[in-house]
């Protein structure tokens, strides 16, 4: 699933090595970050990107309607694209389970991308490890079923946003390790020094498998506008050791 996100983050950069609009969705991706780090904005940008790829509708699962449509990376809120994004509101874990368990009863064309915002809220409601595993596995199973409906050579991608805690206890770490088993691709949003009225985050994308890690800066301006710059073009930045900065310690220990 990293490819769609990579395209979002690489928008405006002419030559992206090896970038192709492939039908392969790649492994399921977990989007991780602290509150207010722009997870929903990135998830929505990925929805807009996938909606513009002409591969079918996008299904956006969330507890409640978005408060405002996040401003894209210069990508316009094209009505044609917006029409292809279907929002499914599941205000409780029970309803989310019901939706996933009955996804095969839903009529209409299968989506090419399945997105879930706020996984932490669903997990908090039903905090057992078994329930979390079943929820993660059902998300994968639902995406796999949509892939089956899309037909040979076409996959439904899966991208899930999870809020991380600064003070993670051992239970949180166990949950995260479990989710990482089911979501081999991960994208971390780490807060960075912010200017007046601006919030800047460092984005680190690990596509899973043997793919290379890539990094960007995401800046949110006071109006909510999001700008993305590739990390390597930042002139005068000190060379940072990626491993110690991008991944919180408690997660590093548990990386599988």
């Amino acid at each position: 699933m990293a490819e769609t996100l990579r395209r979002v983050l690489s928008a405006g950069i002419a030559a992206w090595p090896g970038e192709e609009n492939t039908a392969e969705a790649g492994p399921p991706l977990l989007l991780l970050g602290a509150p207010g780090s722009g997870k929903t904005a990135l998830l929505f940008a990925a929805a807009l990107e996938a909606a513009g790829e002409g591969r079918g509708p996008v299904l956006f699962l969330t507890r409640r309607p978005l408060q405002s449509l996040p401003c894209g990376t210069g990508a316009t809120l094209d009505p044609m694209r917006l029409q292809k994004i279907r929002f499914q509101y599941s205000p409780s874990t029970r309803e989310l389970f019901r939706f996933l368990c009955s996804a095969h009863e839903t009529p209409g064309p299968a989506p090419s991308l399945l997105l879930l915002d706020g996984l932490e809220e669903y997990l908090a409601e039903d905090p057992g490890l078994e329930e979390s595993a079943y929820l993660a596995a059902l998300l994968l199973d639902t995406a796999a079923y949509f892939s089956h409906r899309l037909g040979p050579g076409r996959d439904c991608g899966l991208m899930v946003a999870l809020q991380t805690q600064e003070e993670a206890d051992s239970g949180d770490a166990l949950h995260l390790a479990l989710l990482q088993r089911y979501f081999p691709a991960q994208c971390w949003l780490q807060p960075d020094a912010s200017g007046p009225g601006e919030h800047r985050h460092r984005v680190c994308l690990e596509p899973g498998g043997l793919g290379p890690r890539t990094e960007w800066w995401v800046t949110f301006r006071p109006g909510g506008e999001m700008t993305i710059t590739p990390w390597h073009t930042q002139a005068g930045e000190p060379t940072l050791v990626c491993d110690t900065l991008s991944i919180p310690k408690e997660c590093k220990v548990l990386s599988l």
Partner: protein
Amino acid sequence: MAVALPAVVEELLSEMAAAVQESARIPDEHLLSLKFVFGSSAIQALDLVDRQSITLISSPSGRRVYQVLGSSGKTYICLASCHYCSCPAFAFSVLRKGESLLCKHLLAVYLSQVMRTCQQLCVSDKQLTDIFLMEKRQET
């Protein structure tokens, strides 16, 4: 797919599948390898296969799920798309402790695919939903 099996296990399963196709039986050396990798789970999983305890349930939608009748008489579901079994051993030994690769039910599902001994059951789309949801109710 996610939570992939180690390459050595994938290779063993595909060699077993080839052997079954060729001679309709699994050579002893493959059974020994299975025992070496999975320990006592291998025997228990083979026993489940022998008892024809694995059923592939599908609905007209094309969605599928495996149901395994455990030795205790309880049934568990194993997802067809990723590693997940609803049994307590999967939750404890595989997810919580990380000591095992698979539980005996998931191994039995893979072996029944290799040996083509899976029972088949067609249900309605609604019934399939209930099977997925029942798993959720059992947990809580």
